[in-house]
């Protein structure tokens, strides 16, 4: 992330004046010009707002840091050196860049010297040692439709809650369930978004298994929980 565009803008931002209501505020015009200079011609209008927000936050953080440094050095005013130091510290913290080339060449040379390991025959699935694998998860994705008993025939609106931004709208072609009394509605999953979403790690279920004495133990859904067999 080059700081150049931002420093240009910092110089260009004068004390606030009222913008005429018809045109965009000066900040926005500057941002649009920066985007144009960097060769970006197609963008949604909200991009300018997002960039401006980022700019304000970044500049504010830098200036606050610079104030701290200058007061630490017992200076009366914030000067360019303080700002430079603040930028450098923040860059190392948030905008990391990939390792430099000589470092990469060095570790490449080291790694490439060891010969390729021989492959043991007949060893089943070739996976790293268990602690480097993800084959022992302590959670399971669970279907929401377990509790449909009282509302059979209702199509549950699928919700996606595991970190995914669903820009893709589910296009339910309203696959009506085959019979209204079927509890587990088998909707064609390719048409509607996923129905198994909810993580059950700490869910206190309404049907507490009576034999679960340890209060610290995670409470699982009891229906098809294979641990309880």
């Amino acid at each position, binding site marked *: 992330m*080059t700081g150049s565009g931002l420093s240009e803008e910092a110089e260009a931002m004068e004390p606030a004046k009222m913008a005429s209501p018809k045109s965009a505020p000066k900040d926005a015009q500057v941002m649009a010009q920066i985007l144009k200079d960097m060769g970006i011609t197609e963008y949604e209008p909200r991009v300018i707002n997002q960039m401006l927000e980022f700019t304000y936050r970044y500049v504010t953080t830098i200036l606050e840091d610079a104030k701290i440094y200058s007061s630490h050095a017992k200076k009366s005013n914030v000067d360019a050196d303080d700002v430079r130091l603040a930028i450098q510290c923040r860059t190392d913290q948030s905008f990391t*860049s*990939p390792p430099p080339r000589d470092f990469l060449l060095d570790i*490449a040379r080291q*790694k490439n010297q060891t010969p*390729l390991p021989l492959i043991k025959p007949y060893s089943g699935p070739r996976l*790293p040692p268990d602690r480097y694998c993800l084959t022992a998860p302590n959670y399971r994705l669970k279907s929401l439709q377990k509790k449909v008993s009282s509302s059979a025939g209702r199509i549950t609106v699928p919700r996606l809650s595991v970190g995914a931004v669903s820009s*893709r709208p589910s296009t339910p072609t309203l696959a009506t369930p085959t019979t209204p009394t079927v509890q587990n509605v088998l909707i064609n999953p390719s048409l509607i978004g996923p129905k198994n979403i909810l993580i059950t790690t700490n869910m206190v279920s309404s049907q507490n298994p009576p034999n679960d004495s340890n209060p610290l133990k995670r409470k699982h859904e009891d229906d098809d929980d294979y641990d309880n067999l």
Partner: protein
Amino acid sequence: MRGRRVAVKSCLPRSGASWVGGGVAVEDQPDVSAVLSAYNQQGDPTLYEEYYSGLKHFIECSLDCHRAELSQLFYPLFVHMYLELVYNQHESEAKSFFERFHGDQECYYQDDLRVLSSLTKKEHMKGNETMLDFRTSKFVLRISRDSYQLLKRHLQEKQNNQIWNIVQEHLYIDIFDGMPRSKQQIDAMVGSLAGEAKREANKAKVFFGLLKEPEFDVPLDDEDEEGENEEGKPKKKKPKKDSGGSKSKKQDPNAPPQNRIPLPELKDSDKLDKVMNMKEAARRVRLGPECLPSICFYTFLNAYQGLTAVDITDDSSMIVGGFADSTVRVWSVTPKKLRSVKTAADLSLIDKESDDVLERIMDEKTASELKILYGHSGPVYGTSFSPDRNYLLSCSEDGTVRLWSLQTFTCLVGYKGHNYPVWDTQFSPYGYYFVSGGHDRVARLWATDHYQPLRIFAGHLADVTCTRFHPNSNYIATGSADRTVRLWDVLNGNCVRIFTGHKGPIHSLAFSPNGRFLATGATDGRVLLWDIGHGLMVGELKGHTDTVYALRFSRDGEILASGSMDNTVRLWDAVKAFEDLETDDFTTATGHINLPENSQDLLLGTYMTKSTPVVHLHFTRRNLLLAAGAYSSQ
């Protein structure tokens, strides 16, 4: 050695004669000079504009035949002088230098110049690894001996030889004996961030031949034949020995030894797969200019520009899509649904001795056409099926490469090594190994049972955007945003070939089935063809108007299919492109051959989709072309 030369300079009077002793042959530049060049003031910064315009004047007045070659100096000198000014904090001189001369540069460097225009202070350079690498590496120019003599004489004549100083500092001039190149020839091969490739870089021996396939009998298969045989009479056939590919017992001199790199042994299921492959191959359509393949297009609807990666299995039974919402979706292309293995509880109930145990372990209740795999925390930029269809790889912006099992449809391993977005990944044609390339400018070779990479291929100046294995699994090709394609040896990690010529980041690579040639596609819309053995560009296919994202050779290498963002699939005649190449020792010594202007002759067909950029191409075992892309409504 560099330090000593500086001391000599300071005590001798400034005269042209002082450089006679110091003028070592440019080919012998020590690399140590790079470190010290940062601190060496290359003369008076205010005079840089004069130096540059003086050189410009000289080159423009030179003979036509030399002008094209000498004009190659403009861009690297401009960039290095500008960076020198910025690095030594002469901002205003840098700015006026840029204003004055940036318009003179070639059009294909415009993107670089735009990045440069935003670098106005020394601090800006620190974060930009690509520019730092550019500054410390030597830009390679290939100039004929005559033009070089002309340049050297001019720069050493004048009183003011700062330019000569800078040339020696930052450029590596690879001199060849031969005719000076024309502008057209030069334009075909320049464009990369580090200039062209030195001839020594492409001299190492590359084993581009294929590994021998194991011989085994094609078994009698009455069931199959009966199904096809309409009369219903079983035919008696003698078992045929597999003779395809291994006609002679002698080793192909260009093929690597069988055990050059350790490869997994063939399991029984692999052998069955090979038998199927051979049967399909027997029924394969022979393609050619008169017999073009049919194209079947798989359009991803409602993906809303979220489709970022596609792969299809070798037997064309499954298709996987990686999406910007971090999901990986696997579809079954055949009527057979995707089934996963039963849970542990159910597995304990089945009879392990029964004959169809492999069928019983599969869970029919949850069989479906589509399986969605969750796990990544960023858009998925690359996907790859393993050749035995048991595993799937996906790489993502979150810096990890994940291995998924296609038996249980769960994630098995997350390989962490790149700490930056990983742009592409691919399984080796024999399984077990896979390669990944990302934003940290390296490609890594992994094995599924090692949590750390086995090899690191470092050398590119910018992100590695595309990684592919050679059919014999001994070499890896990487395409990068620095506009070069490099070929790496898996055995020792060395870079054995550097191919320059593209004018934009490379997004697609395809090896020909015989292993001898490589096709590459980039954002400039050109498809370039390379002879791996000789290390030369042997073809240039012009026609696409936008980034070429997909390239694939047909199963026997007769047709090259290319798919692009301009919503078209184009078919090119590969046989004709590779025949009659003048690649004898004389022409290869110069490092380039004359490229014929035959794009139009080689183009066999252009097929337009309505509004769907083509992201992936795949030839089935019978040479039907499958294509995939996401419908984009604008």
